């Protein structure tokens, strides 16, 4: 079982509401800033992109890595965080 970070648990435990994109697990400040400048300043917008890609882990990770220079682990964490949130709330 993969040990989940505190951030992950905090994000998945409640509806994301208006949280910043940096609240998503795997998104650090730097990546969050890059996303925000492109318009992804809130977590729900990133969720939107995730959903647009039909909740496909691999595609989402590829997108995140390709467009915003995320590391593979970051992308992986982000994708699984969003996926789990969707399981819980969507």
């Amino acid at each position, binding site marked *: 079982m993969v040990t989940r970070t505190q951030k992950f648990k905090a994000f998945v435990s409640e509806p994301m509401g208006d949280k910043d994109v940096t609240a998503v697990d795997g998104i650090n400040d730097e990546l969050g800033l890059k996303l925000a400048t*492109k*318009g*992804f*300043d*809130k977590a729900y*917008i990133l969720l939107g*992109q995730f959903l*647009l890609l039909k909740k496909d882990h691999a595609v989402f990770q590829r997108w995140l890595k390709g467009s915003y220079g995320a590391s593979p682990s970051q992308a992986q964490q982000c994708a699984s965080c969003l996926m789990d949130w969707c399981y819980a709330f969507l």
Partner: protein
Amino acid sequence: MPEFLADPSVLTKEKLKSELIANNVSLPGGEQRKDVYVQLYLQHLTARNAPAALAQPDFSSDEEREPTPLGARSRGGAAPGRKATKKTDKPRLEEKDDLDVTELSNEDLQEQLVKYGVTPGPILATTRKIYEKKLQKLKEQGPELGSSTPLPTVSSSAENTKQNGNNDSDQYSDNEEDPKVEFRLEKREPLKAKTKTPVTLKQRRVVEHNQQVVNRVPGNFKHAAPTLSISEFSDLPRRTPKKPLMTAEVVEKTPAEERRVERDILKEMFPYEVSTPTGISASCRRPIKGAAGRPIELSDFRMEESFSSKYVSKYVPSADDKPEKRITKKRSIPMWIKILLFVVVSVFLFVVYQSMETNQGNPFSKYLGVSDTDIPTD
């Protein structure tokens, strides 16, 4: 001999590729951006079209290659159009690049939108077109914002309602919740677009009706905008109340007053309809059984009734008058059915009870004067 286009950006990428292949032009491997194919098209095909233009491809290719690193950020159709038109439309382009919003890169589009006070969400392939349209509308409205808004045609009334909102507060969307509101507004625009045509058709009737209505309505509505927006409310069928109500939210000018007056007008028009906040009213259902202290009657055990009773229980306040009358009439009939059913059930239970008895003597001995016989202790 087919003539080749001077402006290949009008073609889709696929067409460009097929044209190039058809003319034995080698394509670069893999999927390239459209401008790559446009370049090739221009170099090879447009050159063939006009032999005098042979010098141009070299010239243009130099020009075109320069901005490619700059244009590399842009996606799809933005850059090629720019390059293609550069030769012919230099003076026009020098004025303002964003006269044609489709030529803007994603970042430029975002900047332009920010200039108008709109904070767009991410501009991606999916959202780009929406933002282009929005920018176009903003630019059309921009020069008009200075003058008053007389609303010459109803077709622009939908936009003008937004304009009025702009006049009151600089932005028709809150700063804090921009992305959400933007998308909501985006959805409203297509809705408005749909409602535009019916409104224009009914314009004359609306104007006449409005004159009558306006006379009766207190003088808040000397502005053209609210009257026409109300006319939209009144004219649009009541079954689609959400659209006008949504537009009312956009118009920040005294929405509460408008709604009040709207309701007055609507009450005049539809006196028999129940007034609810959303304008949606359910049709009158069967009387509510088992709610508000009414006795549950035997007919309730039927499937239909049970569903309707659950559903209708929400509408108890509005439906109070009618069911009471109905129930008072029906009370007399089911009463004896109830008693009968009770008797039947009790007899049934008695029989079952007896059948479980192991020490079975005369089952009726208990009740025939024999006291203290074996009573099952199960």
